[in-house]
């Protein structure tokens, strides 16, 4: 009985994974002896004469010249007379043939490195079930991982977190200290030197807060006032630092226009008639929604100035300037304001103001507004040209809704109007962009039903 010996694509070097048979020097039926040159193989570096290691008769050529096959692929079979000669490649080395089937029912001796064995054990993967994509059917680390986390990209590429919105720069130690001293980083001023929050600033904020918390349990009115004053001072210091830096670094330019509010006000009146008191809308909701939509369409004003260049923000987090009882100001953000309905925006606004005034704002709301709106019209001011909050590049201002003489079609009438203003960073944008932005808001306010 003649046994069949496999003649496989040999490995001809440390970095060779595949080879191309350039030429066969034998054909089926030829006798071959151990050491005869039977083929010429191209290894991408050179053409190499390849010898066979068994003596016998060429049975079948399986791979035609010109085809690139991985090392270990069976190229031809050789009939070996009598028992498999001692020189025949013992089946124990069967592991080297590429066909996984041969490997599975060989001596079950899986070809993979100890590192892969350790990974498999750690990930609870049974190696026998793994199809080895390595040379000669060798199981590689990727094969095990792929089985353990199907679907995930096989390479361990960590998901790149979405670009964080503009973050206030806080040193790691300051962040840790803030956690330990239960200090809300929003309340901490930034260092005047580099605009970042260091331990010193956190400690100052802590002391300010501490004097309040350490007051007597039933604080006499006076004591509570002093505590508030202390917190007030820290708040004031934060605002002072921010405003001073804004004026120092940001070349502001200012634009203003007057918007006819009649369409908006009558739409509001009709809507509020159908709504319960709790859901009733205020003009600010429309103003915010119009501004958010305009920011989406004029992205140059929505983002931050960082390392001497403008970084646009993918989302519109509208900062709302909220005055706190007894002085002080915060401008937390309504996230993705452009995507909210006017009603949801109204609810978000009420919630934000309530929490701002009770000091329960979230860190994220504080740290990432991309454009801020101030609505001082509430306090009866006709128009406001605000100071931009670094690192943002613009500030929108709405004055009081006021009846003004208004010419329509040549005839003089009285219309409710509002003075809409823009303060903008001339490093990031020019007046042209700012004007287009205000014009867009005006246009949107004329069709409240579409907001």
């Amino acid at each position: 009985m003649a046994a069949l010996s496999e003649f496989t694509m040999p490995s001809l070097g440390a970095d060779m994974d595949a080879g191309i048979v350039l030429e066969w020097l034998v054909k089926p039926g030829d006798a071959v002896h151990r050491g005869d040159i039977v083929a010429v193989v191209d290894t991408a570096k050179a053409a190499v004469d390849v010898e066979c290691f068994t003596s016998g008769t060429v049975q079948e050529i399986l791979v035609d010249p010109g085809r690139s096959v991985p090392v270990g692929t069976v190229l031809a079979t050789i009939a070996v007379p009598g028992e498999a000669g001692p020189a025949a490649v013992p089946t124990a080395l069967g592991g080297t043939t590429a066909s996984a089937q041969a490997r599975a029912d060989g001596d079950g001796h899986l070809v993979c490195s100890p590192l892969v064995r350790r990974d498999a054990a750690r990930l609870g993967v049974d190696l026998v079930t793994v199809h080895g994509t390595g040379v000669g059917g060798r199981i590689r680390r990727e094969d095990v991982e792929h089985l353990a986390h199907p679907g995930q990209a096989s390479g361990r590429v960590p998901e790149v977190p979405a670009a964080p919105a503009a973050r206030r720069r806080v040193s790691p130690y300051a962040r840790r200290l803030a956690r330990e001293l239960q200090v809300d980083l929003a309340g901490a001023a930034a260092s005047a030197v580099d605009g970042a929050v260091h331990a010193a600033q956190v400690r100052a904020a802590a002391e300010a807060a501490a004097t309040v918390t350490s007051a007597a349990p039933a604080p006499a009115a006076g004591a509570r006032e002093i505590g508030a004053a202390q917190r007030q001072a820290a708040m004031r210091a934060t605002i002072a630092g921010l405003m001073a830096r804004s004026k120092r670094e940001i070349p502001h330019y200012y634009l203003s226009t007057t918007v006819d509010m009649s369409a908006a006000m009558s739409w509001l009146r009709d809507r509020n008639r159908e709504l319960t008191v709790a859901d009733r809308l205020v003009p600010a909701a429309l103003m915010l929604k119009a501004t958010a939509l305009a920011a989406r369409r004029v992205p140059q004003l929505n983002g931050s100035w960082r390392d001497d260049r403008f970084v646009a923000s993918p989302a519109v987090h509208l900062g709302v300037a909220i005055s706190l009882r007894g002085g002080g100001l915060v401008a937390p953000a309504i996230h993705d304001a452009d995507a909210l309905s006017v009603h949801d925006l109204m609810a978000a606004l009420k919630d934000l103001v309530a929490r701002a005034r009770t000091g329960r704002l979230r860190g994220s709301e504080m740290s990432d507004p991309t454009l801020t709106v101030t609505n001082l019209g509430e306090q009866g001011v006709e128009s406001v040209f605000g100071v931009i909050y670094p690192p943002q590049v613009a500030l929108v201002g709405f004055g009081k809704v006021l009846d003004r003489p208004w010419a329509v079609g040549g005839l003089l009438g009285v219309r409710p109007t509002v003075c809409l203003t823009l303060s903008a960073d001339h490093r990031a944008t020019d007046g042209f962009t700012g004007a287009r932005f205000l014009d867009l808001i005006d246009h949107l306010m004329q069709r409240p039903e579409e907001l």
Partner: protein
Amino acid sequence: MTTQSLTREAAHAAVADALRRVVPDADLESCPPDVNLREEFELDSLDWVEFVENLAKRTGRRIDEDDYASLETLQDSVDFLSRPGR
């Protein structure tokens, strides 16, 4: 739908309570009856809506935007609440 009108004292208490929910440390005792509530207590439009909402809930009265004019001062509010409503 008529609602039974409030006595003047009840109306005054309702206004005071509605206001204190919005402005916790509001001092109503010394607040002159004829002063503009929004200016006195620095109520912005959101505060005002919340004040109106509290009043409506407390008194069960329906208060529309058109009624805002008759709630400008403490005096007006008490008058409005103690008159039989629609």
